[in-house]
């Protein structure tokens, strides 16, 4: 008979780092996820910069300078919202969330690992998009990069909270449909690629108050050199609080 050594958990940072690495690998290996997080933004970037399929009022900027901040905002939305909502919904359905909650990782560690995983995928996206955009002649306003990082973090918080809200409430198949549909609608009319004030009619007012419009405006403000509008930050912060509060209350682990 072997003596039992009291079992101990690995240090918290190592558990969270392991979970973040695991989440990142899983997303980057999944073909459908790559389509939404990498292929879609690149397609939009090249389409907007190199073709005239989309009418773009750039207010004097080059097409690539104008389009890239919006594409980065789309990338944030695709990872923090669509990809994360789908991954979490299926993990929830398959009992993964319950099982990991019984390991030393716990629910808090699982959440932290997911958020770090999202940020890691976003770093990959930012590098890929920036390299392609620079190759296409993108000249970002360098002084605005820290502000863009801040806007990206706030946008990530808002959209991850929304992802967890729908993933924790709807059935997995429902999440699959909603997460993709909402992304398409927000790209088309949510003020992310085209500024809210250039959208037709009531959509202009609506998009200003949507998290997508706020994130797009913040990114353009930072990287085009016009400065981040305070309203965008306020709107993103309010959505983060609202989605986060709702997710914390309504999320069902099983």
């Amino acid at each position: 008979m072997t003596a039992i050594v009291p079992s101990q958990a690995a240090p918290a940072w190592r558990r969270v780092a392991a979970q973040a690495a695991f989440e990142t690998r899983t997303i980057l290996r999944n073909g459908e996820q790559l389509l939404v997080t990498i292929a879609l933004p690149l397609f939009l970037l090249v389409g907007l910069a190199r073709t005239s399929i989309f009418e773009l009022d750039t207010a004097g900027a080059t097409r690539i300078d104008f389009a890239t901040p919006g594409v980065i905002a789309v990338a944030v939305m695709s990872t923090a919202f669509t990809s994360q909502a789908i991954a979490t919904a299926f993990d929830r359905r398959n009992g993964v969330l319950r099982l990991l909650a019984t390991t030393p990782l716990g629910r808090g560690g699982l959440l932290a690992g997911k958020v770090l995983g999202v940020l890691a995928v976003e770093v990959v996206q930012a590098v890929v998009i920036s390299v392609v955009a620079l190759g296409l002649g993108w000249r970002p306003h360098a002084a605005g990069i820290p502000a863009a990082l801040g806007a990206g973090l706030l946008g990530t918080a808002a959209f991850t909270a929304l992802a967890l809200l729908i993933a924790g409430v709807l059935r997995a198949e429902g999440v699959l449909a909603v997460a993709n549909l909402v992304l398409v609608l927000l790209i088309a009319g949510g003020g992310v690629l085209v500024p809210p004030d250039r959208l037709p009619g009531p959509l202009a007012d609506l998009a200003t108050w949507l998290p997508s419009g706020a994130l797009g405006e913040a990114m353009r403000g930072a990287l085009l050199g016009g400065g981040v509008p305070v309203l965008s930050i306020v709107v993103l912060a309010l959505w983060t609080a609202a989605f986060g509060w709702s997710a914390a209350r309504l999320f069902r682990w099983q």
Partner: protein
Amino acid sequence: MPALSVDRLVKRYDGRAVVDGLTLTAASGQVTAVLGPNGAGKTTTIECCEGLRKPDAGTVRVLGLDPHADAAALRPRVGVMLQDGGLPSGARALEVLRHVSEMYASPRPVDELVERLGIGSFARTSVRRLSGGQRQRLALACAVVGRPELVFLDEPSAGMDPQSRHAVWALVKELRADGVAVVLTTHLMDEAESLADVVHVVDHGAVIASGTVSELLSGGSDAGNETTVRFTAPAGLDLAELTKWLAERGVTDPAVTVGRRTLEHVFLDLTGRHLR
């Protein structure tokens, strides 16, 4: 101190008590089987012990601690194998096991578990492509990789082929020999019979009988007032005369059972034969 003690546990869903005053204990170095038909409240009981559900009444003590209030302290010390597996479907089998092992300060060597449970043959297969039995073996490996003092196995050999079952049973016996408290739910009689030191028969959310397998086999509702004659019939002996003689004296099925009395008979006597 028992490794697990559940005292008058009550858990209701939509006002209906699924677990209704259930009391049981499990000791270290023993395999405790919670045996019951589907819907008896086995899984709900185990989930309350794992801290996944909050009891409506009663107390649960796991290694002397409260599964909710002391969850963080218990998680490294308790291993869990869920009935639905809970394995991430997009990841590869070995990758999942390595990942879970990273949650512990001094896990069991992953290679040894891979060898023991035959995981090597599907190590690089993604979880969604595994068979039911392969999934169960992987889930068991994840439950024990952290060297737990107490493991909960919810229907551990469901969907397994005989080879897998025996590998799982061998591992469970080894855990017991190492002093681990093993609590398993099952509705498989032979599993309870060959593994369990103590069996708690559960029905309608409460324990209706407890004891060792041999205690349960020798007991019964009229224990002491009946006589059991058991003999081994040599091959070729015609039992028709004997059963006819018994039938003339009113001794008919189920009192007459030709064959071996097993835990299954006891179980059906206790929980009834109606389908649910």
